[in-house]
């Protein structure tokens, strides 16, 4: 009975079909059939090359040699070889030299306490941690190190990476995505440049330490934002600077940057690889140097490979900001964690730093002495802040050709090495943006004595007179 009734219902319903509806239904059914049989295509691949064009491109291509034509006297074919530890003294090509080439600002390389603690850790944990932080690679020393760094920098949370380069290169793309804007100084180091590339954001470079140029860019961006307020609401703006720039030795003008941050609503990330444990009364970096409260800076990154004499890097900041990297920091999630022995070495370095904060003052005095001594050189102009442990020497009368300048500098460096002072020419990769002029990079450490500093200046003078005249 129920079945009959249902068929009757259906029959009745079909009788009541309005005409337009029949047309519509037929149209829709036809469209469904067309849809089912349509081929799928990718809208981006619509421009296909014809066979002829493909042949043309293949014919036009000439292979590049694996190794290009290189002159036989290219300096990279004879790299200087270091034997033994690169502590206060370094043995380069058999010459025993005072080390002003590698970065050892607090003199921790070769420190017995640090080495002993690292050896004890190897005996306890073995050599590697065997995994990334999220997958059985977290050892208690990692958590200890993060706590110690948090306490030392007086922040809320720290994240430790296993490689200094990938620290800042992972931190930037964790926060800045496509559609965001990043304002960066021109002279940032290569790790930051790679982080910027990975972030896929719009990058705006401003001239080195030039606040007027930065403000101009910020005003431009503010005008764009006014024209399109809905887009501006979803655009995040970042400002990335280094505490002390590796490529120039200058300190960033943090008070002005913080002003701009408040005015234009930016998020500041500071890469304090050189300024950590170098500036400030207790070694807390540019924020302590300029006496800026920690709420004004969004995140501080640093590599532990310079002052702390270990390997790795870390990011500190508020929990809200830094915690994000535990899942989004690609160098944190997808790389093996720091070997425990290096984490313990970092903890020991922090212990030494906290026990004896006078070493920072000592380092700053050394830096100022070196600055005075080197600025008196006749053939070199010195770039770098007096308090910075990294300084660059440029030739006062540069020859027109970059090659010649480089050759001269390399001869000066060879002379210095032969006379017991190890320095290097600052090396840049070909793919860096804004490559500056070649320079000799001098690093200061707090084990230098006054005599040694004056000796260094003398050796430079002699080198110049030999090579340049």
């Amino acid at each position, binding site marked *: 009975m129920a079945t009959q009734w249902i068929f009757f219902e259906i029959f009745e319903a079909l009788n009541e079909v309005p005409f337009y509806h029949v047309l519509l239904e037929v149209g829709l059914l036809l469209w469904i059939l067309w849809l089912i049989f349509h081929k799928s295509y990718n809208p981006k691949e619509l421009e296909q090359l014809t066979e002829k064009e493909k042949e043309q491109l293949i014919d036009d291509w000439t292979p590049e040699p694996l190794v290009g034509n290189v002159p036989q006297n290219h300096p990279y074919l004879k790299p200087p070889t270091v034997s033994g530890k690169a502590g206060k003294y370094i043995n380069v090509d058999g010459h025993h030299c005072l080390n002003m080439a590698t970065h050892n600002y607090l003199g921790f390389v070769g420190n017995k306490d640090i080495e002993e603690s690292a050896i004890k850790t190897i005996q306890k944990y073995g050599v590697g941690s065997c995994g990334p932080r999220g997958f059985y690679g977290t050892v208690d020393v990692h958590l200890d190190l993060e706590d110690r760094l948090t306490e030392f920098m007086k922040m809320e949370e720290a994240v430790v990476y296993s490689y200094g380069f990938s620290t800042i290169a992972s931190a930037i793309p964790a926060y800045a995505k496509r559609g965001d804007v990043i304002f960066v100084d021109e002279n940032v180091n290569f790790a930051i440049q790679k982080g910027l590339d990975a972030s896929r954001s719009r990058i705006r470079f401003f001239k080195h330490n030039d606040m007027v140029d930065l403000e101009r860019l910020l005003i431009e961006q503010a005008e764009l934002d006014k024209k399109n307020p809905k887009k501006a609401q979803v655009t995040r703006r970042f400002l990335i600077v280094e505490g002390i720039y590796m490529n120039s030795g200058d300190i960033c003008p943090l008070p002005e940057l913080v002003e701009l941050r408040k005015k234009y609503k930016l998020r500041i990330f500071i890469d304090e690889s050189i300024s950590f444990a170098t500036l400030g009364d207790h070694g807390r970096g540019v924020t302590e140097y300029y006496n800026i409260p920690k709420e004004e800076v969004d995140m501080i990154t640093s590599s532990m490979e310079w002052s702390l004499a270990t390997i790795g890097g870390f990011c500190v900041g508020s929990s809200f900001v830094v915690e994000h990297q535990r*899942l989004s920091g690609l160098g944190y999630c997808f790389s093996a964690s720091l070997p425990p022995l290096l984490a313990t070495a970092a903890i020991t370095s922090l212990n030494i730093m906290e026990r004896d904060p006078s070493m920072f003052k000592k380092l700053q005095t050394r830096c100022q002495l070196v600055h005075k001594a080197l600025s008196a050189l006749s053939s070199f102009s010195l770039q770098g802040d007096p308090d910075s442990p990294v300084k660059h020497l440029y030739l006062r009368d540069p020859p027109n050709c970059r090659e010649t300048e480089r050759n001269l500098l390399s001869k000066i460096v060879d002379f210095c090495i032969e006379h017991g002072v190890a320095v290097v020419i600052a090396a840049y990769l070909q793919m860096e943006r804004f490559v500056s002029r070649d320079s000799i990079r001098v690093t200061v450490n707090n084990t230098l004595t006054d005599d040694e500093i004056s000796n260094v200046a003398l050796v430079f003078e002699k080198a110049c007179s030999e090579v340049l005249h």
Partner: protein
Amino acid sequence: MSLMTCTCNTIEKVLWAYCVYFEKNQITTLSDKRGIHKVTCCVYEGASFRFVSAMLVGGHGESNPNTTWLQSRGLWISYALGCHFVFLHILKGAPWIPQDQGDCRILTHWEQIDYGQQFTATRKFLTVVPIVLFLLTSFYTRYATSHFIVNFISMVLVVLPKLPQFHRVRLFGINKY
């Protein structure tokens, strides 16, 4: 997720109002609908919906409208197409942190399917189902004009953004960023 639950609450209120209106004007000739209508349109129900319990119920004779509201004519298509529309064509991005550096932040779920490739099997399926639903419901509501108008509009609203010509198109700047 909170944005999704907010929009779901609004949709529920709208659908509730719609079914109350249409229930009043229909003469129920099919006494036992439950035997015939299978649940064909539960494909799209993804999130859990919370009813706003502040309003007093019982105006239509049953103590708990939850038992019967989904049986209302036209409600299945409105409900299914409503949440289909919101989830596929209004909400942008993804509920997790995607590893694509923010590519999909401005794309709706529909535009993200198969990386923007058109006429793939998934897209064909999702385009055909609302049309089939429309044909079914217009049959079951006996081609009544009022139902037809609402069903047709909701079908068009759901099928139009699926056309390849509408890929990444935003009308009147709505939902652009």
